[in-house]
């Protein structure tokens, strides 16, 4: 569905798909270049940007492949501009080599993954099975990408702008991990004006902007000399990732005071779960939810706090996968919640839970 800009106000509610909201947010955040290749269920983003970027005199290019697109991102980022690409799972796998290079070259960029069922070409249904890929780097080498997980069209819009800011500020790639449900969802949302998250950004004095009058900059990922050069880079990156973990852990809690059961879910799954939780709450059952908004850095400190104030309560992780975020929950809570009290509900392959299914699962757990 197309944007409707019939009024001039900045806060008028418009109707768009999540994928389109991502595109509009990129433009608002000052994205100069967008390179991508179509794939369901994310194609509305390039479709929308093909039109809008031309209107704004920006650079839209449909590359010949995902590989080409990510290397164009690499180049544009090295030149110091804000740049974005988007794809869905199989396409994101193709981009991993380039992503590793971008991380190694300490370049900022935004990558949107509207996750679909896998492995392989899989299917086109919504999935959350790329959690490991997004939060563990994805390509080769020791690196991490900031990973944001929206659960509404408003958040698709807001988080895309924030992803540009975080990526520029920390010089690491930022991923929007969406899924086929939120990407395709049509909801009214506010087109808010772009407000940078930080007062000051570090200058892009490393960018390749033409070296007349200064020493040439070099953007590289190969470190052979000195022998410990790469180790130094990894130490620097590691320090940066720890700083990001200290400064960027986003989460949200719902009814987590004196809960008997706490659901942990993100993205579309968190919305489906919330419907089921509210039904249980109406029946007097104490069920709450913890929703990570950043998948990396994982909000471990926040989850620990909730587990501590709800001693003895069970944890139920719900994912559209066979259990990936589950491992982060187990790691965070290993000292305070017995492993047998951390339960899991989910399946991969494009399966999605319904409010009824989750309601039943919760009833089953509360009965025990």
């Amino acid at each position, binding site marked *: 569905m197309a944007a409707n800009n*019939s009024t001039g106000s900045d806060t008028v509610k418009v*109707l768009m798909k999540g994928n389109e909201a991502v595109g509009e947010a990129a433009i608002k955040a000052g994205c100069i270049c967008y390179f991508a290749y179509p794939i369901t269920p994310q194609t509305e983003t390039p479709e929308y940007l093909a039109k809008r970027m031309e209107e704004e005199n920006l650079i839209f290019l449909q590359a010949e492949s995902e590989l080409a697109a990510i290397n164009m991102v690499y180049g544009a980022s090295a030149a110091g501009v804000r740049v974005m690409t988007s794809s869905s799972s199989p396409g994101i796998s193709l981009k991993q080599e380039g992503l590793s290079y971008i991380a190694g070259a300490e370049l900022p960029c935004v990558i949107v993954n509207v996750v679909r069922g896998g492995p392989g070409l899989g299917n*086109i249904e919504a999935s959350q099975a790329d959690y490991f890929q997004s939060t563990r780097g994805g390509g080769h080498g020791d690196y991490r990408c900031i990973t944001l997980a929206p659960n509404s069209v408003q958040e698709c819009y807001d988080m895309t702008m924030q992803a540009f800011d975080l990526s520029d500020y920390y010089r690491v790639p930022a991923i929007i991990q969406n899924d086929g449900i939120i990407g395709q*969802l049509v909801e009214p949302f506010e087109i808010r004006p772009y407000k940078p998250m930080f007062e000051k950004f570090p200058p892009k004095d490393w960018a390749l902007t033409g070296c007349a009058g200064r020493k040439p900059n070099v953007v590289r990922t190969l470190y052979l000399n000195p022998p410990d050069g790469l180790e130094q880079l990894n130490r620097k990156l590691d320090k940066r990732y720890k700083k990001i973990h200290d400064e960027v852990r986003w989460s949200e809690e719902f009814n987590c005071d004196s809960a008997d059961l706490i659901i942990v879910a993100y993205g*579309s799954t968190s919305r*489906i779960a*919330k419907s089921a939780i509210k039904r249980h709450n109406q029946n007097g059952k104490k069920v709450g939810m913890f929703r990570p908004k950043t998948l990396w850095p994982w909000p471990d400190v926040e989850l620990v706090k909730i587990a501590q104030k709800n001693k003895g309560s069970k944890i139920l992780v719900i994912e559209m996968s066979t259990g990936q975020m589950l491992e982060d929950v187990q790691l965070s809570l290993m000292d305070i919640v017995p492993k047998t009290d951390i339960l899991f509900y989910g399946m991969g392959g494009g399966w999605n839970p*319904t*409010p009824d299914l989750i309601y039943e699962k919760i009833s089953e757990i509360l009965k025990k």
Partner: protein
Amino acid sequence: MDNETSILIAGFGGQGVILAGNVLAYACIDAGKNVCAMASYGAEVRGGTAKGVISISDNEIDSPIIEQANLAIIMNAPSYMKYAKTIRPNSPVIVNSSMIDLSKTKKSDLDIVGVDATNLAIKMGNIKVANIIMLGVMIKKTGILEPQSVFNGMKRAFSKGKRGLYYINEIAFRTGYDLI
């Protein structure tokens, strides 16, 4: 959840299923209601079935996935065959009797309202407005929105290059609204 209206709109590609949903969603914004819509996506072909589900509520809408629609507009026979069983029993279902044989809908436990929408639209001079005639019937039948909100919604759905289409659609809506 319980006071949520979940509307299924289905037909073949080209019957304006998505557009009807768009108009409805804009009308909800106008009326200050929360709305959330999911259209079927992916391996669809021209002439195949198109489906959208729109949830409307005065409260926050959580799950975008719904188990059962409790209101529906069905534009053609294959869609009726495919989706009728997914609708909650006793729900109002507006069916396009120009394309769906009403004798086949008799056995169902749904509250069927037949509308000769395609033929009415042809008489109006534009077959494409059958969807909006159906929408008019649905709004009258259920009272979920004021007609004025639908007109305001239409003005946003038919903006920019499509402004010329507003009036015939307003007439189509009124035609449907006055049918029952």
